[in-house]
């Protein structure tokens, strides 16, 4: 069956899968936890550490509770999809590969103005930063393109290239649609709204109005404690999951408006400690194996 990425949201995703699969990537599935960005997927954070080559692509549903608009804003969603590609070490032709992937989903760079505009990335929560660009298509940011320099406070050796496509935006652009809910999901008339509008309405209400805040505070503390428990038992991947959990609970508390400006910094600091601690433990655990396999590598 022919794919039609210009008419179908799912075909666009499948076309990206085909493309990156053909270019040596593992096609992974979303991480089964609530998270704010594809970067939180262990396939990105933890795999960005250490010397082993790693090429993967996956869709990650992202939760941004404060961006919810009860389904009333044509561009903003509290739940949306990112397409993540991680290539380690960053290949010399990474920009060409990326541009080729745009052609595959129907963006012709001789008809559309593609630009690489400086935009460096930093996640204080993950102790991570990188240099790169936001990629513009006719003035619209469609991808974040980053060369990771540090993760969890450690130098990335070697550096990974990370591509994060905003799938809804890209699809809206390609399909020529002004409202995200009007996107054709399958090329046969099922819209994005059919799939997600009710979800947006209910989840916005829950995020902003309903979620029991005492329970959320409790969950945050429990995730924090469990992260430390996991770290004590030297299972850093499990610890990292609890850091991701704490991060999302914190986002929910923000949406409920129960964290003051002063407290905000302190909560972020707590999440950062968990994430960095997990990265550090992961690094400690794997370093001997890595060093043996890659003598030129050192922590």
């Amino acid at each position, binding site marked *: 069956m022919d794919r039609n990425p210009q008419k179908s949201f799912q075909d666009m995703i499948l076309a990206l899968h085909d493309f990156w699969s053909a270019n040596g990537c593992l096609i992974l599935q979303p991480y089964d936890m609530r998270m704010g960005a594809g970067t939180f997927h262990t396939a990105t954070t933890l795999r960005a550490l250490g010397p082993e080559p790693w090429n993967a692509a996956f869709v990650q549903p992202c939760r941004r509770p404060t961006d919810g608009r009860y389904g009333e804003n044509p561009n903003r969603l509290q739940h949306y999809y990112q397409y993540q590609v991680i290539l380690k070490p*960053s290949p010399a032709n990474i920009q060409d590969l990326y541009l080729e992937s745009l052609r595959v989903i129907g963006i012709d*760079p*001789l008809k559309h*103005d*593609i630009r690489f*505009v400086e935009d460096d990335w930093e996640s204080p929560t993950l102790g991570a930063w990188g*240099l790169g660009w936001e990629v513009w298509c*006719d003035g619209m940011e469609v991808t974040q393109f980053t*060369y990771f320099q540090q993760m969890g406070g450690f130098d990335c050796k070697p550096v990974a290239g990370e591509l994060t496509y905003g799938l809804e935006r890209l699809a809206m652009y390609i399909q020529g649609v002004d409202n995200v809910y009007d996107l054709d999901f399958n090329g046969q008339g099922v819209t994005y709204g059919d799939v997600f509008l009710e979800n947006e309405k209910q989840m916005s209400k829950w995020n902003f109005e309903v979620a029991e805040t005492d329970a959320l505070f409790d969950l945050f503390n429990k995730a924090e404690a469990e992260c430390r428990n996991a770290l004590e038992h030297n299972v850093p991947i499990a610890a990292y999951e609890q850091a991701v959990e704490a991060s999302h609970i914190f986002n929910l508390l923000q949406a409920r408006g129960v964290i003051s*400006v002063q407290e905000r910094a302190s909560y972020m600091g707590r999440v950062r400690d968990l994430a960095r601690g997990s990265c550090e433990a992961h690094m400690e655990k794997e370093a001997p194996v890595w060093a043996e396999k890659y003598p030129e590598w050192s922590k």
Partner: protein
Amino acid sequence: MSDFLLELRSEEIPARMQAGARAELEKLFRREMDAAGVTAGEITVWSTPRRLALIARGLPEATEAVSEELKGPPVGAPDQAIEGFCRKAGVDKGALETRDVKGRATYFAVKNVPGRATKDLLAEAIPAIIRDFSWPKSMRWGAASISTESLRWVRPLSGIVALLGDDVVECEVHGVTSGSVTLGHRFHHSGDITIGNADDYAMKLRAGHVIVDHEERQDLIRSGAAKVASEAGLKLVEDEGLVIENAGLTEWPVPLLGRFEEDFLEVPPETIQLTARVNQKYFVCEDEAGELANAFICTANIEAEDGGARVVDGNRKVLAARLSDARFFWEVDRKKTLAEHAKGLERITFHEKLGTVADKVERVAKLAEWLASEGIVPNCDPKLARQAAELCKADLVTEMVGEFPELQGLMGGYYARAEGLPDPVADAIRDHYKPVGQGDQVPTAPLTVAVSLADKLDTLAAFFAIDEKPTGSKDPFALRRAALGVLRLVLNNSIRTNLSDVLGAAKTGAITSMMFAQVRAVNKDAYEALERVGVDLEDDATFDLEEQALDKGMGPIMADAEQKMAGDLGLLDFFADRLKVQQREAGVRHDLIDAVFALGGEDDLVRLLARVKALQSFMDTEDGANLLAGYKRAANILKKEDWHGAEGEIARTGEEDPLSQVDDPDMRAVVEAKMAERHAKELSYEAEPAEKALMDALAKSEPAASQAIEAEDFSGAMAALAALRAPIDRFFDEVTVNAEEENKRAHRLDLLAAFRAAVHKVADFSRIEG
């Protein structure tokens, strides 16, 4: 002679870094050529997003051989010294030559440095340039980055073109080898471009859809944007920053005009312009009436097949989404009054040691009201001043300013007008941050002046109170700018006030806030008690609380506040420094400002500056220069003789009756006796004519200068001083100060002291240079 071409090709270099990178490339190239002894002629540097290029004209084929001689230690010097010299010079001991230097046999190292081919030198220079290149931010990439020692560049470096004449300068840097091949435009040209030499470089790139000369691209954008605007019957709003940025984002710039829905024009034009510029890098246009038009100009990097219709349409949609946001903010924000918004400031920390922004606003309101009611800012209604100040920061918590912090003040002005507040209040809210930069206009509307002054004075007093003063290049709270703002507001509006009074008022509010914030941090109960009672630091009753506070561990906080209340926090000195810096640019001599400041008691800036300016004009005259010479001579003699004649010293107080300064009756008697003794001496001999002339001149000039100063007739004061010039010169010519007779000597020294005191009526001449 050959021309040299160097192209460093990389992934997209941030636009804002390109100008610096061009300068860096030229600097490092010159450094390398200087070190190698190659005279570089004309050098051209270019940049595009994907390449940095340098062309050096007329390089020699090789450097000339040179012979260097280094003088060493004398023959017979300790071995250590000789060996050290050999090491330094890089020669064997056996190769040293011996020469005669002033009769001593001395070692010399003679080094013959042969000439080298420029091509070889360049092959060494290129890697050095790349390795030493300094970027504001740089990164590692690719497989080599398994080591942190790998090459760093702003983005991955992908190719080097290095040609001397028609030949490749062969070199390699971290796996990137030089050659003659480059790439053209990312989309308009596929395949390699082989460069022949420096002369065909720009031409061949142009054929590959790359305009390598950034200035040419800037011109194209400037003229192209103006053209598409005029074709649409509009006028481009020029923006040189955008021209440069867009030239840094494109290799083949194509300005395109698009339209947005006219409905968006209901939003304040500044928000549209800012959205377009900051978020999208678009130019905007005006119609014939000078009103913002519903048009934007984007700069594409391609010549699209359809003439850019799709590109424009895509950009229009993005802008529309941005403008929808702006319109949404504009609508939401106006649902509340500014007073309602201002309540939100209680949640924003101004500084942890100073409380919230709401606290600051209250201080500013009090100060603005005071400036108005005291008449310091004339023709200003105190009530309106308070109202404008209370609302001046309210827009900080609006959605629009949250999105565009640059619009602070401006949006407050719009919202104030929209809710029907009087125009002067809206203007004061809008403009109270002014003047911001050097060229920024200084407010003149009384209400605006009052709020702007109060805001800046409070900021200064507050940060000085918590010891956050600027040091060296560090000024995180922009206090120098605030002080400069105060100076410009005061001087431009001729505001007559004593700076210390105004600073005192600001200081009281700031220290109170500081104390509150600290007490709150240490002990909430004590804070609440203070808040109930209310604190007025100038009221003794406040410190009755001290006993209670001490019990609760508040002692050090209260003591710190009390101690800070006693001084001026160093603000006056800070202002004096700022004034000197500011006036230096206006050509006013800083030593003259010092000379007037040093007298003390003068902190009416308007008067002070008038006096300094009169002094400067006077010092430019022959009389002024000679009087200064006379003054210095007199001062030197008095210093040498260690003369502290009572008359002279007392006269410095500037009082008519020297005794009026003496309160102590015993002291009074002593001084009276001393004065009587002096007068007796005065009469004990007949003054020489030149001596008499100086006495007469002083008797006239001194009161004349005093009166002129009193009347703020500073040129009159200078004229009074000028009258002393001839008599003092004559005195030095004709009279012996150090007369043998003690009574004569004492009287003459007193006379010089009196002369010095008279001059000090105008300024402390000892501070004047020259």
